[in-house]
């Protein structure tokens, strides 16, 4: 006779198998779907920048989209860095446990709740005209606008962990520095940053991972041209946005190319997130 304990434990274990199989299935299906394009073009699919879906002359290369993804995400990270770091200091140190920090914290969290498509609309109708008015670009579409909106989108992810880690800086360390006559800026520079360093790095890595996969807002702002962007104000495409854009009319080799881009995106985000989580795991030990 099986005891209720055994049955329950088996049920829980069986449930855990589902997530293992789903993830294995995702990898299997992405690899399977990518095989046609890789067998046609080989590894040069990754390094080629040709994209021509016309029948008979089909050429597919992922390089422009890999480039577009990395450039927009790095730009987003650079813009996000001072903003998220300052906000984290505001919440976790300067106004820690004060009402104003809670309000700012809630507002930052709300940023994470805004759907990508709403960011896209706001970027299209507010940010883009603003960029045109500044004379930075004639249409306002492109890498810079996309990076800017991405930066806003990833701020909450960088801020929530960073603020928490900054707040965890041991008080006696800070007090020791203050007792030696350090200013708050010096405490931040010489006590808080060194003690929170790896946590801060991890949270920005995770935020970067978020940026890599964002789709809708980028699709609406990047200009959707299948070439390696030629500067900050040029148009382009990211891996996610090209899938969203080109998917509608895709079958055969083109579908395989889009799935292969999905696979590359899966691998890249997996590596970035893995690195971030690894640092956090080492921290919590």
């Amino acid at each position: 006779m099986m005891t209720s304990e055994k049955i329950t434990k088996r049920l829980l274990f069986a449930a855990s198998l589902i997530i293992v199989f789903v993830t294995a299935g995702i990898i299997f299906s992405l690899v399977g779907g990518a095989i046609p394009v890789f067998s046609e073009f080989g590894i040069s699919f990754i390094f080629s920048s040709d994209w021509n879906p016309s029948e008979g002359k089909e050429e597919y290369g992922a390089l422009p989209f890999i480039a577009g993804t990395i450039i927009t995400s790095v730009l987003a990270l650079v813009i996000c860095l001072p903003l998220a770091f300052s906000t984290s200091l505001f919440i976790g140190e300067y106004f820690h446990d004060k009402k104003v920090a809670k309000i700012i914290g809630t507002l930052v969290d709300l940023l994470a709740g805004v759907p990508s498509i709403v960011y896209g609309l706001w970027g299209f109708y507010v940010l883009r005209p603003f960029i045109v008015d500044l004379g930075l670009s004639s249409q306002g579409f492109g890498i810079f606008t996309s990076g800017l909106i991405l930066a806003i989108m990833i701020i909450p992810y960088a801020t929530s962990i960073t603020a928490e880690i900054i707040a965890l800086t041991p008080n006696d360390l800070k007090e020791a520095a203050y007792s030696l006559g350090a200013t708050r800026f010096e405490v931040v520079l010489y006590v808080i940053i060194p003690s929170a360093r790896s946590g801060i790095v991890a949270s920005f890595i995770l935020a970067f991972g978020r940026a890599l996969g964002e789709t809708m807002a980028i699709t609406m702002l990047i200009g959707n041209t299948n070439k390696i962007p030629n500067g900050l104000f040029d148009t382009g495409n990211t891996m996610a946005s090209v899938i969203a854009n080109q998917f509608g009319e895709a079958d055969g080799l083109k579908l395989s190319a889009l799935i292969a881009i999905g696979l590359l995106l899966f691998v890249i985000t997996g590596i970035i997130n893995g690195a971030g989580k690894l640092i956090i795991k080492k921290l919590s030990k």
Partner: protein
Amino acid sequence: MMKLNLALNHKVGVEKNPRKVKNNIFTTLVIFFSVVTISPIILIISKLIIKGAKQINLSFFTETAPDTFVAMTAISNGEVIPGGILNGITGTLFMVIMAALIAIPIGILIGLYLYENPNKIYANIVRDIADILQGVPSIVLGLIAYIWIVKGLTNGYSALAGSISLSIMMLPLILRSTEETLKMIPISLKEAAIALGVPYHKVIFKVMIPTGFSGLSSGVLLAISRVIGETAPLMLTALGSSVVNYHLDKPTSAVPLLIWEFYNDPNMVNLIWSSSLFLLGFILTLNLLSKHIASKRKAN
């Protein structure tokens, strides 16, 4: 003498000490950048309210989206565009509820498994897999649901495919929040039940889960609020529909999909604001509700 002293002190304080100046500049920058950080959310919400609030009326909730010719006629006659987003609201609810029905039980059971086996190597692998899954971009999950369901099962775009892609997104969120919630319950509560001779499954389902209920529901609400605004995976799976649909195997609309359609149709572009306002309001309400439950729980 006293006066002189005060004056001297005063003078020392005012003297430009470069360290103090640096400190003040830095503090100013921290506050300035924090204000810059939160300004987008305020700008976005106010833009949506200003442009969208006036379009929200009863028919917004009771009628399906107009077709482009109806909208064009209305515009050329200077009338308000008729219709609403009923097909989107029902589609979103249908698919999100389906996704939740799939992800909640599985996620909670896996969360229980992780809680019961904190140090097993296999459990750590499951945790890592959940982390990987949580980081997978939603568009990739759209591709997967397309391959598995649209191509493999329903022979066409379908609500089921949309639900599956959303449920895979929810799963890691729910299982991690379940494990975290259970970890916060004192172990002695479980032991108290065991000491009463209560069978294992009842300890789990009648003591642990009810005790962690508010934590679990806060996690579920947060997971729902994270997927309800998703557009990209639904473009690849549910596609959209001009009618209200409750069939699992038929294309289905959703509020974010309607926003995308309106955005791409010059005749209907005015409808994006009200739909976005509604969607954002719904998500932020769920978000705040989830936070409220979580903070009440902490206070206990």
